[in-house]
Protein backbone atom coordinates (compact mmCIF):
# COMPACT_ATOMS: atom_id res chain seq x y z
CA UNK A 1 0.00 0.00 0.00
CA UNK A 2 1.38 3.38 -0.97
CA UNK A 3 -0.30 6.52 0.19
CA UNK A 4 0.91 10.12 -0.16
CA UNK A 5 1.21 12.25 2.94
CA UNK A 6 -1.84 14.57 3.07
CA UNK A 7 -0.01 17.56 4.53
CA UNK A 8 3.24 19.16 3.43
CA UNK A 9 6.34 18.85 5.49
CA UNK A 10 6.64 21.57 8.18
CA UNK A 11 8.49 24.60 6.78
CA UNK A 12 11.96 25.46 8.00
CA UNK A 13 12.17 28.04 10.80
CA UNK A 14 13.18 30.95 8.54
CA UNK A 15 10.45 30.17 6.06
CA UNK A 16 8.04 29.91 8.98
CA UNK A 17 8.97 33.43 10.10
CA UNK A 18 8.73 34.68 6.53
CA UNK A 19 5.28 33.12 6.28
CA UNK A 20 4.34 34.88 9.55
CA UNK A 21 5.47 38.27 8.23
CA UNK A 22 3.90 37.75 4.79
CA UNK A 23 0.57 36.47 6.10
CA UNK A 24 0.32 39.29 8.65
CA UNK A 25 1.24 41.82 5.91
CA UNK A 26 -1.45 40.29 3.66
CA UNK A 27 -3.97 40.52 6.52
CA UNK A 28 -3.04 44.20 7.05
CA UNK A 29 -3.43 44.88 3.33
CA UNK A 30 -6.77 43.10 3.10
CA UNK A 31 -8.05 44.79 6.31
CA UNK A 32 -7.01 48.23 5.03
CA UNK A 33 -8.68 47.46 1.70
CA UNK A 34 -11.88 46.47 3.53
CA UNK A 35 -11.74 49.68 5.56
CA UNK A 36 -11.38 51.72 2.36
CA UNK A 37 -14.47 49.88 1.06
CA UNK A 38 -16.22 50.80 4.34
CA UNK A 39 -16.52 47.28 5.74
CA UNK A 40 -16.06 47.71 9.45
CA UNK A 41 -15.08 45.07 12.07
CA UNK A 42 -13.73 42.42 9.72
CA UNK A 43 -10.00 43.00 10.64
CA UNK A 44 -9.78 40.39 13.40
CA UNK A 45 -10.83 37.41 11.22
CA UNK A 46 -8.12 38.40 8.72
CA UNK A 47 -5.45 38.43 11.44
CA UNK A 48 -6.84 35.20 12.91
CA UNK A 49 -6.63 33.59 9.54
CA UNK A 50 -2.98 34.79 9.21
CA UNK A 51 -2.10 33.38 12.66
CA UNK A 52 -3.88 30.08 11.96
CA UNK A 53 -2.23 29.71 8.57
CA UNK A 54 1.19 30.38 10.07
CA UNK A 55 0.76 28.01 12.96
CA UNK A 56 -0.59 25.32 10.62
CA UNK A 57 2.29 25.50 8.21
CA UNK A 58 5.07 27.32 10.09
CA UNK A 59 5.09 25.77 13.58
CA UNK A 60 4.83 27.25 17.07
CA UNK A 61 7.52 29.95 16.86
CA UNK A 62 6.29 31.36 13.55
CA UNK A 63 2.77 31.34 15.05
CA UNK A 64 4.05 33.35 18.06
CA UNK A 65 5.69 35.87 15.71
CA UNK A 66 2.48 36.10 13.65
CA UNK A 67 0.51 36.64 16.88
CA UNK A 68 2.84 39.45 18.06
CA UNK A 69 2.91 41.10 14.60
CA UNK A 70 -0.89 40.80 14.32
CA UNK A 71 -1.42 42.41 17.73
CA UNK A 72 0.97 45.28 16.95
CA UNK A 73 -0.41 45.97 13.47
CA UNK A 74 -4.04 45.66 14.65
CA UNK A 75 -3.26 48.13 17.44
CA UNK A 76 -1.41 50.41 15.03
CA UNK A 77 -3.80 50.39 12.12
CA UNK A 78 -7.23 49.68 13.49
CA UNK A 79 -7.47 50.54 17.19
CA UNK A 80 -8.28 54.20 17.67
CA UNK A 81 -6.36 56.35 17.72
CA UNK A 82 -5.15 54.80 14.51
CA UNK A 83 -1.53 54.98 13.37
CA UNK A 84 -0.37 54.87 16.96
CA UNK A 85 0.39 51.99 19.39
CA UNK A 86 -1.59 53.55 22.12
CA UNK A 87 -4.64 51.67 23.31
CA UNK A 88 -7.25 51.80 26.01
CA UNK A 89 -8.44 49.19 28.49
CA UNK A 90 -11.62 48.66 26.48
CA UNK A 91 -9.47 47.10 23.73
CA UNK A 92 -8.08 44.37 26.00
CA UNK A 93 -10.99 41.86 25.51
CA UNK A 94 -10.38 41.99 21.76
CA UNK A 95 -6.72 41.12 22.26
CA UNK A 96 -7.58 38.43 24.84
CA UNK A 97 -10.08 36.78 22.51
CA UNK A 98 -7.60 36.98 19.67
CA UNK A 99 -4.81 35.49 21.81
CA UNK A 100 -6.93 32.59 23.07
CA UNK A 101 -8.20 31.68 19.58
CA UNK A 102 -4.65 31.89 18.21
CA UNK A 103 -3.35 29.65 21.02
CA UNK A 104 -6.12 27.14 20.40
CA UNK A 105 -5.37 26.98 16.71
CA UNK A 106 -1.63 26.62 17.40
CA UNK A 107 -2.26 23.85 19.88
CA UNK A 108 -4.48 21.98 17.42
CA UNK A 109 -1.85 22.38 14.78
CA UNK A 110 0.91 21.04 16.98
CA UNK A 111 -1.20 18.09 18.15
CA UNK A 112 -2.12 17.30 14.61
CA UNK A 113 1.54 17.52 13.61
CA UNK A 114 2.63 15.20 16.40
CA UNK A 115 -0.04 12.65 15.55
CA UNK A 116 0.94 12.80 11.94
CA UNK A 117 4.62 12.31 12.81
CA UNK A 118 3.81 9.27 14.95
CA UNK A 119 1.61 7.88 12.30
CA UNK A 120 4.35 8.25 9.73
CA UNK A 121 6.87 6.62 12.01
CA UNK A 122 4.71 3.61 12.78
CA UNK A 123 3.87 3.30 9.10
CA UNK A 124 7.59 3.15 8.28
CA UNK A 125 8.23 0.61 11.00
CA UNK A 126 5.39 -1.48 9.72
CA UNK A 127 6.76 -1.31 6.22
CA UNK A 128 10.21 -2.48 7.36
CA UNK A 129 8.69 -5.33 9.31
CA UNK A 130 6.54 -6.38 6.40
CA UNK A 131 9.63 -6.34 4.18
CA UNK A 132 11.60 -8.43 6.67
CA UNK A 133 8.82 -10.91 7.14
CA UNK A 134 8.32 -11.23 3.43
CA UNK A 135 12.02 -11.88 3.01
CA UNK A 136 12.08 -14.47 5.82
CA UNK A 137 9.05 -16.20 4.48
CA UNK A 138 10.53 -16.39 1.02
CA UNK A 139 13.80 -17.68 2.50
CA UNK A 140 11.89 -20.35 4.40
CA UNK A 141 10.21 -21.20 1.14
CA UNK A 142 13.60 -21.69 -0.46
CA UNK A 143 14.68 -24.45 1.88
CA UNK A 144 14.07 -28.04 0.88
CA UNK A 145 13.07 -28.91 4.41
CA UNK A 146 9.50 -28.82 5.43
CA UNK A 147 8.95 -26.10 7.99
CA UNK A 148 5.64 -25.27 9.56
CA UNK A 149 4.48 -23.45 12.62
CA UNK A 150 1.50 -24.36 14.71
CA UNK A 151 0.04 -22.76 17.77
CA UNK A 152 -0.24 -24.53 21.09
CA UNK A 153 -3.49 -26.09 19.95
CA UNK A 154 -1.62 -27.67 17.02
CA UNK A 155 -3.41 -25.43 14.53
CA UNK A 156 -1.10 -24.66 11.64
CA UNK A 157 -0.27 -20.96 11.22
CA UNK A 158 2.62 -21.10 8.79
CA UNK A 159 3.37 -23.64 6.06
CA UNK A 160 6.37 -23.33 3.76
CA UNK A 161 6.82 -24.65 0.25
CA UNK A 162 8.97 -27.54 1.55
CA UNK A 163 5.92 -28.68 3.55
CA UNK A 164 3.78 -28.48 0.47
CA UNK A 165 6.29 -30.56 -1.46
CA UNK A 166 6.65 -33.10 1.33
CA UNK A 167 3.03 -33.53 2.35
CA UNK A 168 1.20 -32.49 -0.77
CA UNK A 169 -1.01 -29.95 0.98
CA UNK A 170 -0.87 -26.32 -0.24
CA UNK A 171 -0.40 -23.57 2.36
CA UNK A 172 -4.00 -22.41 2.06
CA UNK A 173 -5.21 -25.99 2.59
CA UNK A 174 -2.98 -26.56 5.59
CA UNK A 175 -3.15 -23.27 7.48
CA UNK A 176 -5.93 -23.30 10.04
CA UNK A 177 -6.06 -27.11 10.30
CA UNK A 178 -4.76 -29.20 13.17
CA UNK A 179 -1.51 -30.88 12.12
CA UNK A 180 -1.97 -34.30 13.81
CA UNK A 181 -5.26 -34.81 12.00
CA UNK A 182 -4.23 -33.31 8.67
CA UNK A 183 -1.07 -35.41 8.52
CA UNK A 184 -2.39 -38.42 10.44
CA UNK A 185 0.78 -38.40 12.51
CA UNK A 186 1.91 -41.56 14.28
CA UNK A 187 4.22 -40.55 17.12
CA UNK A 188 6.95 -42.80 18.53
CA UNK A 189 5.60 -42.26 22.03
CA UNK A 190 2.50 -40.75 23.64
CA UNK A 191 1.92 -37.17 22.52
CA UNK A 192 1.60 -36.06 26.14
CA UNK A 193 5.18 -37.14 26.82
CA UNK A 194 6.41 -35.30 23.75
CA UNK A 195 4.56 -32.23 24.91
CA UNK A 196 6.21 -32.52 28.33
CA UNK A 197 9.66 -32.85 26.77
CA UNK A 198 8.99 -29.84 24.61
CA UNK A 199 7.79 -27.66 27.49
CA UNK A 200 10.72 -28.72 29.64
CA UNK A 201 13.59 -28.40 27.17
CA UNK A 202 11.94 -26.22 24.50
CA UNK A 203 13.00 -28.84 21.96
CA UNK A 204 12.05 -32.27 20.80
CA UNK A 205 13.20 -34.45 17.96
CA UNK A 206 12.20 -37.87 16.79
CA UNK A 207 10.92 -39.91 13.93
CA UNK A 208 7.25 -39.73 13.09
CA UNK A 209 5.15 -41.43 10.47
CA UNK A 210 2.75 -39.32 8.47
CA UNK A 211 0.36 -39.61 5.59
CA UNK A 212 0.61 -37.39 2.53
CA UNK A 213 -2.33 -35.74 0.77
CA UNK A 214 -2.28 -38.61 -1.75
CA UNK A 215 -2.49 -41.19 1.03
CA UNK A 216 1.09 -42.50 0.82
CA UNK A 217 3.11 -43.00 3.97
CA UNK A 218 6.17 -40.94 4.77
CA UNK A 219 8.68 -41.26 7.60
CA UNK A 220 10.16 -37.95 8.70
CA UNK A 221 12.83 -36.87 11.13
CA UNK A 222 10.97 -34.15 12.99
CA UNK A 223 12.61 -31.41 15.07
CA UNK A 224 10.43 -29.21 17.18
CA UNK A 225 11.26 -25.87 18.78
CA UNK A 226 9.03 -24.09 21.21
CA UNK A 227 8.54 -20.36 20.80
CA UNK A 228 7.49 -18.36 23.82
CA UNK A 229 5.50 -15.17 23.64
CA UNK A 230 6.65 -11.88 25.22
CA UNK A 231 4.88 -12.91 28.39
CA UNK A 232 7.02 -16.08 28.54
CA UNK A 233 4.13 -18.40 27.88
CA UNK A 234 4.44 -21.08 25.18
CA UNK A 235 3.10 -19.52 22.00
CA UNK A 236 3.95 -21.64 19.01
CA UNK A 237 5.74 -24.76 17.86
CA UNK A 238 8.10 -24.63 14.90
CA UNK A 239 8.55 -27.99 13.21
CA UNK A 240 11.31 -28.82 10.76
CA UNK A 241 10.84 -32.12 8.96
CA UNK A 242 13.11 -34.18 6.74
CA UNK A 243 11.85 -37.02 4.63
CA UNK A 244 13.82 -40.07 5.75
CA UNK A 245 11.59 -42.68 4.14
CA UNK A 246 14.36 -43.57 1.71
CA UNK A 247 16.98 -43.61 4.43
CA UNK A 248 14.76 -45.80 6.58
CA UNK A 249 14.22 -48.12 3.67
CA UNK A 250 18.00 -48.37 3.14
CA UNK A 251 18.57 -48.89 6.83
CA UNK A 252 16.03 -51.64 6.71
CA UNK A 253 17.80 -53.09 3.68
CA UNK A 254 21.15 -52.92 5.44
CA UNK A 255 19.65 -54.54 8.50
CA UNK A 256 18.18 -57.31 6.36
CA UNK A 257 21.49 -57.74 4.56
CA UNK A 258 23.33 -57.89 7.86
CA UNK A 259 20.89 -60.45 9.11
CA UNK A 260 21.39 -62.44 5.94
CA UNK A 261 25.14 -62.07 6.36
CA UNK A 262 24.91 -63.25 9.93
CA UNK A 263 22.86 -66.23 8.79
CA UNK A 264 25.36 -67.02 6.07
CA UNK A 265 28.21 -66.71 8.52
CA UNK A 266 26.45 -69.14 10.79
CA UNK A 267 25.86 -71.42 7.82
CA UNK A 268 29.49 -71.12 6.83
CA UNK A 269 30.57 -71.87 10.35
CA UNK A 270 28.32 -74.91 10.33
CA UNK A 271 29.75 -75.99 6.97
CA UNK A 272 33.23 -75.43 8.29
CA UNK A 273 32.46 -77.57 11.30
CA UNK A 274 31.07 -80.21 8.99
CA UNK A 275 34.22 -80.05 6.90
CA UNK A 276 36.26 -80.41 10.02
CA UNK A 277 34.23 -83.45 11.00
CA UNK A 278 34.66 -84.72 7.47
CA UNK A 279 38.41 -84.27 7.60
CA UNK A 280 38.42 -85.96 10.98
CA UNK A 281 36.55 -88.94 9.68
CA UNK A 282 38.87 -89.13 6.68
CA UNK A 283 41.77 -89.10 9.06
CA UNK A 284 40.27 -91.89 11.12
CA UNK A 285 37.92 -93.95 9.01
CA UNK A 286 39.79 -93.90 5.74
CA UNK A 287 43.03 -94.90 7.34
CA UNK A 288 41.67 -97.94 9.15
CA UNK A 289 40.61 -99.92 6.03
CA UNK A 290 43.82 -98.88 4.35
CA UNK A 291 45.81 -100.21 7.27
CA UNK A 292 43.88 -103.45 7.04
CA UNK A 293 44.54 -103.70 3.31
CA UNK A 294 48.23 -103.25 3.86
CA UNK A 295 48.32 -105.40 6.97
CA UNK A 296 46.50 -108.36 5.54
CA UNK A 297 48.28 -108.13 2.20
CA UNK A 298 51.54 -108.29 4.13
CA UNK A 299 50.23 -111.28 6.05
CA UNK A 300 49.17 -112.90 2.77
CA UNK A 301 52.59 -112.20 1.32
CA UNK A 302 54.17 -113.88 4.28
CA UNK A 303 51.92 -116.94 4.54
CA UNK A 304 51.50 -117.60 0.81
CA UNK A 305 54.94 -116.62 -0.38
CA UNK A 306 55.93 -120.18 -1.11
CA UNK A 307 52.92 -120.92 -3.31
CA UNK A 308 52.85 -117.59 -5.19
CA UNK A 309 54.45 -117.34 -8.61
CA UNK A 310 56.41 -114.32 -9.80
CA UNK A 311 53.35 -112.69 -11.37
CA UNK A 312 51.25 -113.06 -8.22
CA UNK A 313 54.07 -111.67 -6.10
CA UNK A 314 54.19 -108.62 -8.37
CA UNK A 315 50.43 -108.15 -7.95
CA UNK A 316 50.78 -108.28 -4.20
CA UNK A 317 53.61 -105.75 -4.44
CA UNK A 318 51.44 -103.38 -6.49
CA UNK A 319 48.64 -103.75 -3.95
CA UNK A 320 50.96 -102.74 -1.15
CA UNK A 321 52.47 -99.89 -3.09
CA UNK A 322 49.09 -98.44 -4.09
CA UNK A 323 47.79 -98.69 -0.57
CA UNK A 324 50.84 -96.83 0.73
CA UNK A 325 50.39 -94.18 -1.93
CA UNK A 326 46.84 -93.70 -0.85
CA UNK A 327 48.04 -93.37 2.71
CA UNK A 328 50.38 -90.56 1.62
CA UNK A 329 47.58 -88.89 -0.33
CA UNK A 330 45.35 -88.90 2.71
CA UNK A 331 48.13 -87.47 4.86
CA UNK A 332 48.87 -84.68 2.37
CA UNK A 333 45.21 -83.88 1.89
CA UNK A 334 44.72 -83.68 5.62
CA UNK A 335 47.71 -81.37 5.97
CA UNK A 336 46.28 -79.23 3.18
CA UNK A 337 42.88 -79.04 4.80
CA UNK A 338 44.45 -78.32 8.17
CA UNK A 339 46.20 -75.23 6.73
CA UNK A 340 42.86 -73.88 5.62
CA UNK A 341 41.34 -74.48 9.03
CA UNK A 342 44.21 -73.65 11.36
CA UNK A 343 44.48 -70.23 12.97
CA UNK A 344 47.50 -68.34 11.69
CA UNK A 345 49.80 -67.25 14.45
CA UNK A 346 51.53 -64.25 12.96
CA UNK A 347 54.50 -62.53 14.48
CA UNK A 348 57.87 -61.18 13.37
CA UNK A 349 59.86 -64.17 12.11
CA UNK A 350 63.30 -64.47 10.59
CA UNK A 351 62.79 -65.74 7.04
CA UNK A 352 66.55 -66.30 6.88
CA UNK A 353 66.38 -68.78 9.72
CA UNK A 354 63.27 -70.46 8.35
CA UNK A 355 64.90 -70.85 4.93
CA UNK A 356 67.99 -72.43 6.49
CA UNK A 357 65.85 -74.89 8.45
CA UNK A 358 63.91 -75.77 5.31
CA UNK A 359 67.08 -76.28 3.28
CA UNK A 360 68.58 -78.56 5.90
CA UNK A 361 65.35 -80.58 5.99
CA UNK A 362 65.18 -80.97 2.20
CA UNK A 363 68.92 -81.67 2.02
CA UNK A 364 68.24 -85.03 3.70
CA UNK A 365 66.26 -86.04 0.60
CA UNK A 366 69.18 -85.27 -1.66
CA UNK A 367 71.86 -87.36 0.06
CA UNK A 368 74.25 -88.72 -2.54
CA UNK A 369 73.41 -86.08 -5.11
CA UNK A 370 75.43 -83.10 -6.21
CA UNK A 371 73.33 -80.10 -5.28
CA UNK A 372 74.58 -76.51 -5.04
CA UNK A 373 72.38 -74.72 -2.51
CA UNK A 374 72.41 -70.96 -2.53
CA UNK A 375 70.56 -69.08 0.16
CA UNK A 376 70.40 -65.30 -0.27
CA UNK A 377 69.76 -62.80 2.48
CA UNK A 378 66.12 -62.79 3.56
CA UNK A 379 64.47 -60.20 5.78
CA UNK A 380 62.48 -60.61 8.93
CA UNK A 381 58.74 -60.51 8.23
CA UNK A 382 55.36 -60.91 9.86
CA UNK A 383 53.99 -64.36 9.36
CA UNK A 384 53.20 -67.76 10.79
CA UNK A 385 56.63 -69.38 11.17
CA UNK A 386 55.56 -73.00 10.90
CA UNK A 387 53.31 -72.36 7.89
CA UNK A 388 55.99 -70.39 6.04
CA UNK A 389 58.47 -73.15 6.83
CA UNK A 390 56.10 -75.73 5.34
CA UNK A 391 55.71 -73.59 2.20
CA UNK A 392 59.47 -73.28 1.77
CA UNK A 393 60.01 -77.00 2.42
CA UNK A 394 57.41 -77.80 -0.24
CA UNK A 395 58.98 -75.45 -2.79
CA UNK A 396 62.55 -76.58 -2.07
CA UNK A 397 61.58 -80.23 -2.08
CA UNK A 398 59.85 -79.62 -5.39
CA UNK A 399 63.04 -78.06 -6.73
CA UNK A 400 65.09 -80.96 -5.40
CA UNK A 401 62.72 -83.45 -7.02
CA UNK A 402 62.72 -81.90 -10.47
CA UNK A 403 66.50 -81.42 -10.59
CA UNK A 404 67.05 -85.10 -9.91
CA UNK A 405 67.97 -85.74 -13.55
CA UNK A 406 70.68 -83.07 -13.48
CA UNK A 407 74.28 -84.11 -12.89
CA UNK A 408 74.79 -80.92 -10.92
CA UNK A 409 71.63 -79.43 -9.48
CA UNK A 410 71.45 -75.75 -8.58
CA UNK A 411 68.78 -74.53 -6.20
CA UNK A 412 68.63 -70.94 -5.13
CA UNK A 413 66.39 -69.12 -2.70
CA UNK A 414 66.41 -65.37 -2.31
CA UNK A 415 64.49 -62.16 -1.92
CA UNK A 416 63.80 -60.38 -5.19
CA UNK A 417 61.87 -57.34 -4.13
CA UNK A 418 61.64 -55.66 -0.81
CA UNK A 419 59.21 -52.87 -0.09
CA UNK A 420 57.95 -51.61 3.23
CA UNK A 421 54.68 -53.49 2.86
CA UNK A 422 55.55 -56.33 0.53
CA UNK A 423 58.37 -58.71 -0.29
CA UNK A 424 58.81 -61.26 -3.05
CA UNK A 425 60.72 -64.48 -2.39
CA UNK A 426 61.89 -66.71 -5.22
CA UNK A 427 63.10 -70.32 -5.49
CA UNK A 428 64.98 -71.07 -8.68
CA UNK A 429 66.22 -74.40 -9.98
CA UNK A 430 67.90 -75.76 -13.09
CA UNK A 431 65.58 -78.75 -13.27
CA UNK A 432 63.29 -80.10 -15.96
CA UNK A 433 61.09 -77.02 -15.88
CA UNK A 434 57.57 -76.99 -17.31
CA UNK A 435 55.56 -75.74 -20.23
CA UNK A 436 54.20 -72.25 -19.47
CA UNK A 437 51.02 -73.28 -21.27
CA UNK A 438 50.05 -75.25 -18.19
CA UNK A 439 51.23 -72.75 -15.61
CA UNK A 440 47.69 -72.18 -14.32
CA UNK A 441 47.41 -75.86 -13.44
CA UNK A 442 50.48 -75.84 -11.24
CA UNK A 443 48.81 -74.78 -8.03
CA UNK A 444 45.61 -76.83 -8.25
CA UNK A 445 44.99 -79.76 -5.94
CA UNK A 446 45.95 -83.10 -7.54
CA UNK A 447 47.33 -81.26 -10.59
CA UNK A 448 50.51 -82.74 -11.91
CA UNK A 449 52.54 -81.77 -14.97
CA UNK A 450 54.79 -84.83 -14.95
CA UNK A 451 53.98 -88.53 -15.13
CA UNK A 452 54.14 -90.26 -11.74
CA UNK A 453 56.66 -92.82 -12.95
CA UNK A 454 59.10 -89.96 -13.72
CA UNK A 455 58.48 -87.86 -10.61
CA UNK A 456 56.47 -89.16 -7.69
CA UNK A 457 54.13 -86.91 -5.77
CA UNK A 458 50.57 -86.41 -4.68
CA UNK A 459 49.92 -83.10 -6.45
CA UNK A 460 49.08 -81.32 -3.23
CA UNK A 461 52.40 -79.65 -2.37
CA UNK A 462 52.03 -76.53 -4.51
CA UNK A 463 48.35 -76.21 -3.62
CA UNK A 464 49.44 -76.16 0.00
CA UNK A 465 52.03 -73.48 -0.79
CA UNK A 466 49.38 -71.37 -2.46
CA UNK A 467 47.03 -71.73 0.46
CA UNK A 468 49.72 -70.68 2.91
CA UNK A 469 50.71 -67.67 0.80
CA UNK A 470 47.08 -66.62 0.43
CA UNK A 471 46.65 -66.77 4.15
CA UNK A 472 49.54 -64.31 4.36
CA UNK A 473 47.85 -61.86 1.99
CA UNK A 474 50.25 -62.72 -0.81
CA UNK A 475 50.22 -64.34 -4.20
CA UNK A 476 52.20 -67.12 -5.80
CA UNK A 477 53.28 -67.56 -9.41
CA UNK A 478 55.88 -69.40 -11.46
CA UNK A 479 57.97 -69.12 -14.58
CA UNK A 480 59.53 -72.01 -16.41
CA UNK A 481 60.66 -73.48 -19.69
CA UNK A 482 60.78 -77.13 -20.58
CA UNK A 483 64.24 -78.42 -19.65
CA UNK A 484 65.42 -74.94 -18.67
CA UNK A 485 64.53 -74.91 -15.01
CA UNK A 486 61.75 -73.20 -13.12
CA UNK A 487 61.38 -70.25 -10.78
CA UNK A 488 58.64 -70.01 -8.20
CA UNK A 489 57.77 -66.66 -6.67
CA UNK A 490 55.61 -65.72 -3.79
CA UNK A 491 54.84 -62.38 -2.25
CA UNK A 492 54.07 -61.69 1.38
CA UNK A 493 52.17 -58.60 2.31
CA UNK A 494 52.31 -56.83 5.60
CA UNK A 495 49.09 -54.90 5.40
CA UNK A 496 46.61 -57.70 4.89
CA UNK A 497 46.03 -59.70 8.00
CA UNK A 498 49.57 -59.11 9.20
Amino acid at each position, binding site marked *: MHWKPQSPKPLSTIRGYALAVLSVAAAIGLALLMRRLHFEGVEIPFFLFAAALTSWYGGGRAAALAFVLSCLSFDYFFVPPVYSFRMTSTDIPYFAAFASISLLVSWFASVRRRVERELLQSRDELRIEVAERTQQASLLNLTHDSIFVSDMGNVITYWNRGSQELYGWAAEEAIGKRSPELLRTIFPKPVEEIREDLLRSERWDGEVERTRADGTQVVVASRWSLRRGEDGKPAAILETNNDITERKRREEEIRALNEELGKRTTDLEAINKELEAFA*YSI*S*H*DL*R*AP*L*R*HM*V*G*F*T*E*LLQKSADSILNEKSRRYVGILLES*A*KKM*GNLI*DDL*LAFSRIGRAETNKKLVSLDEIAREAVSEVRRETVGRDVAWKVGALPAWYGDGSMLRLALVNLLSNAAKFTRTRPKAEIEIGCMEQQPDQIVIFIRDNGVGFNMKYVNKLFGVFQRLHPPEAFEGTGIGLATVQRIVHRHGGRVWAEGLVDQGATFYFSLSKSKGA
Partner: protein
Amino acid sequence: MSGLGRIWMVEDDPRDVELTLTALEEYNLANEVVVTRDGEEALDYLYHRGNYATHSNGNPAVLLLDLKLPNVDGLEVLQRIKSDEKLKMIPVVVLTSSHEEKDMVASYKLGVNAYVVKPVDFHEFVNAIKELGVFWAVINEPPPGSVRKK
Protein backbone atom coordinates in the same frame (compact mmCIF):
# COMPACT_ATOMS: atom_id res chain seq x y z
CA MET B 1 61.46 -108.36 34.30
CA SER B 2 59.32 -110.17 36.76
CA GLY B 3 56.79 -111.56 34.29
CA LEU B 4 54.29 -110.73 31.62
CA GLY B 5 51.68 -108.16 32.40
CA ARG B 6 48.15 -108.47 31.13
CA ILE B 7 47.43 -106.33 28.09
CA TRP B 8 43.91 -105.03 27.86
CA MET B 9 42.73 -103.75 24.53
CA VAL B 10 39.61 -101.70 23.83
CA GLU B 11 39.07 -101.82 20.08
CA ASP B 12 35.86 -102.05 18.07
CA ASP B 13 37.35 -103.03 14.72
CA PRO B 14 37.85 -106.82 14.54
CA ARG B 15 40.47 -106.46 11.80
CA ASP B 16 42.51 -104.11 13.92
CA VAL B 17 42.14 -106.57 16.78
CA GLU B 18 43.36 -109.39 14.53
CA LEU B 19 46.29 -107.39 13.21
CA THR B 20 47.27 -106.31 16.71
CA LEU B 21 47.01 -109.85 18.04
CA THR B 22 49.05 -111.12 15.08
CA ALA B 23 51.70 -108.55 15.80
CA LEU B 24 51.74 -109.44 19.50
CA GLU B 25 51.79 -113.18 18.73
CA GLU B 26 54.90 -112.72 16.68
CA TYR B 27 56.65 -111.70 19.87
CA ASN B 28 54.81 -114.10 22.19
CA LEU B 29 52.97 -111.29 23.87
CA ALA B 30 49.46 -112.39 22.97
CA ASN B 31 48.68 -114.82 25.77
CA GLU B 32 47.44 -112.35 28.31
CA VAL B 33 45.48 -110.08 26.04
CA VAL B 34 41.94 -109.12 26.95
CA VAL B 35 39.83 -107.46 24.30
CA THR B 36 36.68 -105.43 24.85
CA ARG B 37 34.80 -104.13 21.86
CA ASP B 38 33.31 -100.85 22.99
CA GLY B 39 33.42 -98.26 25.71
CA GLU B 40 30.47 -99.58 27.64
CA GLU B 41 31.92 -103.07 27.71
CA ALA B 42 35.21 -101.57 28.83
CA LEU B 43 33.47 -99.88 31.76
CA ASP B 44 31.71 -103.19 32.58
CA TYR B 45 35.10 -104.84 32.63
CA LEU B 46 36.56 -102.19 34.90
CA TYR B 47 33.66 -102.24 37.34
CA HIS B 48 33.10 -106.04 37.16
CA ARG B 49 29.64 -105.62 35.77
CA GLY B 50 27.55 -107.49 33.21
CA ASN B 51 29.59 -110.13 31.36
CA TYR B 52 32.59 -109.30 33.49
CA ALA B 53 30.91 -109.68 36.87
CA THR B 54 32.98 -112.75 37.63
CA HIS B 55 36.32 -111.97 36.02
CA SER B 56 39.43 -112.23 38.11
CA ASN B 57 40.51 -109.32 40.16
CA GLY B 58 43.46 -107.14 39.39
CA ASN B 59 44.10 -104.38 36.93
CA PRO B 60 45.83 -104.88 33.57
CA ALA B 61 49.47 -103.85 33.13
CA VAL B 62 48.45 -101.61 30.29
CA LEU B 63 45.31 -100.53 28.48
CA LEU B 64 45.51 -100.00 24.72
CA LEU B 65 42.58 -97.69 24.07
CA ASP B 66 41.07 -96.77 20.74
CA LEU B 67 39.35 -93.38 20.72
CA LYS B 68 36.59 -93.93 18.21
CA LEU B 69 34.29 -96.45 19.85
CA PRO B 70 30.59 -97.10 19.65
CA ASN B 71 28.37 -95.94 22.56
CA VAL B 72 30.87 -94.64 25.08
CA ASP B 73 33.89 -93.24 23.26
CA GLY B 74 37.54 -93.67 24.20
CA LEU B 75 38.00 -90.23 25.70
CA GLU B 76 35.12 -90.88 28.09
CA VAL B 77 36.55 -94.24 29.12
CA LEU B 78 39.87 -92.50 29.71
CA GLN B 79 38.19 -89.82 31.76
CA ARG B 80 36.36 -92.41 33.90
CA ILE B 81 39.55 -94.33 34.55
CA LYS B 82 41.65 -91.28 35.40
CA SER B 83 39.04 -89.89 37.79
CA ASP B 84 38.62 -93.15 39.72
CA GLU B 85 40.96 -93.57 42.67
CA LYS B 86 41.13 -97.37 42.20
CA LEU B 87 41.71 -97.27 38.47
CA LYS B 88 43.71 -94.13 37.82
CA MET B 89 47.02 -95.94 38.20
CA ILE B 90 46.36 -98.19 35.18
CA PRO B 91 48.74 -97.06 32.44
CA VAL B 92 46.63 -96.08 29.43
CA VAL B 93 48.02 -95.89 25.91
CA VAL B 94 45.76 -94.32 23.32
CA LEU B 95 46.19 -96.26 20.10
CA THR B 96 44.30 -94.50 17.38
CA SER B 97 44.11 -93.66 13.70
CA SER B 98 43.57 -90.02 14.55
CA HIS B 99 46.27 -87.53 13.79
CA GLU B 100 44.04 -84.78 15.09
CA GLU B 101 45.74 -82.45 17.47
CA LYS B 102 42.58 -81.86 19.48
CA ASP B 103 42.30 -85.59 20.25
CA MET B 104 45.90 -85.62 21.34
CA VAL B 105 45.52 -82.55 23.52
CA ALA B 106 42.29 -83.87 25.05
CA SER B 107 43.94 -87.22 25.84
CA TYR B 108 46.96 -85.66 27.48
CA LYS B 109 44.75 -83.31 29.48
CA LEU B 110 42.90 -86.34 30.82
CA GLY B 111 46.21 -87.85 31.90
CA VAL B 112 46.95 -90.43 29.22
CA ASN B 113 50.33 -92.18 29.60
CA ALA B 114 51.11 -92.37 25.90
CA TYR B 115 49.53 -91.47 22.56
CA VAL B 116 50.32 -93.61 19.54
CA VAL B 117 49.01 -93.06 16.00
CA LYS B 118 48.53 -96.37 14.22
CA PRO B 119 50.87 -96.37 11.23
CA VAL B 120 49.36 -97.30 7.88
CA ASP B 121 52.45 -99.25 6.97
CA PHE B 122 52.13 -102.79 8.29
CA HIS B 123 55.76 -103.12 9.31
CA GLU B 124 55.64 -99.91 11.21
CA PHE B 125 52.37 -100.99 12.75
CA VAL B 126 53.75 -104.32 13.87
CA ASN B 127 56.84 -102.60 15.23
CA ALA B 128 54.81 -100.08 17.12
CA ILE B 129 52.58 -102.76 18.67
CA LYS B 130 55.56 -104.91 19.52
CA GLU B 131 57.39 -102.06 21.19
CA LEU B 132 54.29 -101.04 23.07
CA GLY B 133 53.70 -104.60 24.21
CA VAL B 134 57.27 -105.16 25.25
CA PHE B 135 57.54 -101.87 27.04
CA TRP B 136 54.28 -101.92 28.97
CA ALA B 137 53.88 -105.64 29.53
CA VAL B 138 57.48 -106.55 30.13
CA ILE B 139 59.87 -103.65 30.76
CA ASN B 140 57.65 -101.26 32.66
CA GLU B 141 57.07 -102.04 36.31
CA PRO B 142 53.29 -101.77 36.61
CA PRO B 143 51.57 -100.20 39.59
CA PRO B 144 50.73 -102.51 42.52
CA GLY B 145 47.60 -104.59 42.02
CA SER B 146 48.20 -105.41 38.37
CA VAL B 147 47.74 -108.91 37.05
CA ARG B 148 51.01 -110.46 36.17
CA LYS B 149 51.85 -113.89 34.84
CA LYS B 150 54.89 -115.25 36.61
